[in-house]
């Protein structure tokens, strides 16, 4: 099939729990510095934004369809455009897996409401 799609849904409460219990260890393992900066609000880190980015990472993994390859979360980065939309940048194992499967033209959309965040990712076999 020429197009692949992935979707994920994340409870914002689970992200709050991770921040509360594991703090910087959680944030540093899962998110890049740029992602953490994009998730800052007027009163600190906004867990809804983090949850949306985690959903985007998991949705991307579903597109990549690893058999059992390790994909560190930071290998999938959500980049926020100044105008508000987001894009994906893959590195390391994620980029390798995408290249091996000729997957490109990744596109992502995220949203959050009512205590949940979601993301959809599509990619095309080039």
């Amino acid at each position: 099939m020429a197009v692949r799609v992935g979707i994920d849904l994340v409870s914002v409460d689970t992200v709050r729990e991770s921040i509360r219990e594991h703090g910087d260890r959680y944030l540093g393992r899962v998110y890049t510095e740029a992602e953490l900066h994009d998730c800052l609000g007027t009163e600190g880190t906004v867990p809804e934004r983090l949850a949306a980015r985690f959903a985007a990472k998991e949705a991307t993994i579903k597109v990549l369809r690893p058999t059992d390859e390790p994909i560190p979360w930071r290998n999938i980065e959500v980049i926020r455009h100044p105008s508000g939309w987001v894009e994906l940048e893959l590195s390391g194992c994620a980029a390798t897996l995408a290249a091996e499967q000729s997957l490109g033209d990744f596109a992502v959309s995220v949203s959050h409401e009512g205590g949940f965040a979601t993301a959809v990712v599509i990619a095309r076999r080039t």
Partner: protein
Amino acid sequence: MTEEIRQIIKDHGRLPIDTDGLVANTDLHQAGMTSHASVNVMLALEDHFDIEFPDSMLKPSVFESIASIEAAVSELRAKAGVV
């Protein structure tokens, strides 16, 4: 170690089922552990056993079951010289 891991899964895995009923090879993802809950389980395992999962171990098969987690934790503790 098995019961320690079971307790960590109970406390952090957010499973919708009674974790007392989990056997060693129960597929935790099939049992309802979400992707983000597995992050919390991983971090809790690291805290409890004083280990760190390297990137090479961040794969589904490692966190698939109590048995696979125990094998991974044992391997990391052995490398760290912890009996």
